């Protein structure tokens, strides 16, 4: 009897223990599930808030929007400078008109870019070198080996233009401006693809189209003077 009661008793206890343990495990499992669900919920909510926040917040200091707005202001400023130089050095109406067109349109576009940066609360001067905002796939828009933006005239080329007059100045201007526009188109195409602000992509597209078409005109004018 003792031999049977003992193990029987133990069996019962063990069985009870198993049930208790199973129930506990069951509770623990449900508890874990609840914690996991809560964590997932919190992560999901925070993630959504983050995306909304990023989407609605102004562009970053390092992105394509700010980079384009800064670099294209500098790029445009040189086009304006060269157009003024040629207007002071020739009487040719065709060249003077295209120069007038470049001065007014590019100065106005530079003003738009200035205004964007003010609205975004960003400095006009970035902390990174020119063209650092351009992605790898836009090789034509990368900075040149000397660190300058694509299409920019060198100080020596500007000095050459300053020293010339008449048709010689016209030829130098047309050559430099074709190169300048080609670089500008590459920059604008990079911004058209990479900027996230619709207004930036729109202006970049307009610049790419206008300068692409103007390159044809400048080339015809250069051919006529060669």
């Amino acid at each position: 009897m003792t031999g049977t009661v003992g193990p029987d008793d133990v069996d019962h206890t063990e069985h009870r223990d198993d049930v208790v343990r199973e129930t506990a495990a069951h509770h623990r499992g449900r508890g874990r599930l609840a914690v996991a669900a809560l964590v997932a919920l919190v992560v999901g909510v925070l993630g959504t808030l983050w995306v909304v926040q990023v989407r609605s917040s102004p562009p970053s200091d390092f992105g394509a929007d700010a980079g384009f707005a800064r670099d294209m202001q500098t790029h445009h400023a040189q086009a304006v400078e060269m157009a003024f130089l040629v207007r002071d050095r020739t009487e040719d109406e065709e060249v003077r008109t295209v120069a007038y067109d470049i001065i007014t349109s590019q100065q106005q576009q530079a003003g738009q870019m200035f205004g964007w940066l003010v609205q975004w609360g960003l400095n006009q001067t970035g902390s990174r070198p020119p063209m650092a905002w351009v992605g790898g796939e836009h090789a034509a828009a990368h900075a040149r080996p000397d660190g300058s933006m694509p299409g920019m005239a060198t100080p020596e080329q500007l000095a050459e233009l300053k020293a010339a007059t008449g048709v010689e100045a016209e030829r130098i201007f047309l050559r430099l401006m074709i190169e300048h526009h080609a670089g500008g188109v590459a920059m604008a195409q990079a911004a058209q693809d990479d900027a996230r602000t619709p207004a930036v992509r729109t202006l970049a597209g307009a610049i790419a189209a206008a300068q692409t078409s103007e390159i044809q005109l400048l080339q015809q004018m250069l051919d006529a003077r060669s």
Partner: protein
Amino acid sequence: MSKSSRPQGGARAGRSKVDELRQAQRAKERRSRFILIGAVSAVVLLIAGIVGFTVYNDVSNRPTLDAVKTYEVTRDHTTDPVTYAQTPPVGGNHSPTWLNCGVYTEPVENELAVHALEHGAVWVTYRPDLPADQVEKLTESIPDTYMVLSPYEGLPGPVVASAWGTQLVLTGADDRRLTEFIQKYRQGAQTPEPGAACTGGSDGDLPPTSG
């Protein structure tokens, strides 16, 4: 009931053995849970500590612009020589012509440079005896446009950065605050005429006086 309250030796021994094992098992589980919690806590604390230290270090080592001085200045055009309150001037009446931006190796006219400041340029001046390698470093570290670099006699420091209505005395070309100053003030919010040209003006010659 009474039977089970006094169980036989063998069963009792078996049960206490099982209990012992169970207890040992539980203790082991508890121990490994403590170790796990302890390890996770340690890793979390370590990461928090590293992040905290890095942020603190970054913030405390970041160059500040606290030493920047600001001034109220006038901005009329004049062809007469002007006496300026600051050295070098940060604003005030100035020539109708502006100084073209760029690197100058000789001192430039105050009346021209002040007009460039009005258009959003930052003017970096250095003592004429600044070592050549420091001048070279300044030349390389500044942006290509809306910047003027020139030597200047009688500066309050080896290098001084000025923008319209603002000035910062620097310890030299290596002073990290120069970059911060340029980022904030070149075409900055204090500029009276942002986007006005820094080209097409004068390369150094004052226009003839009207008198």
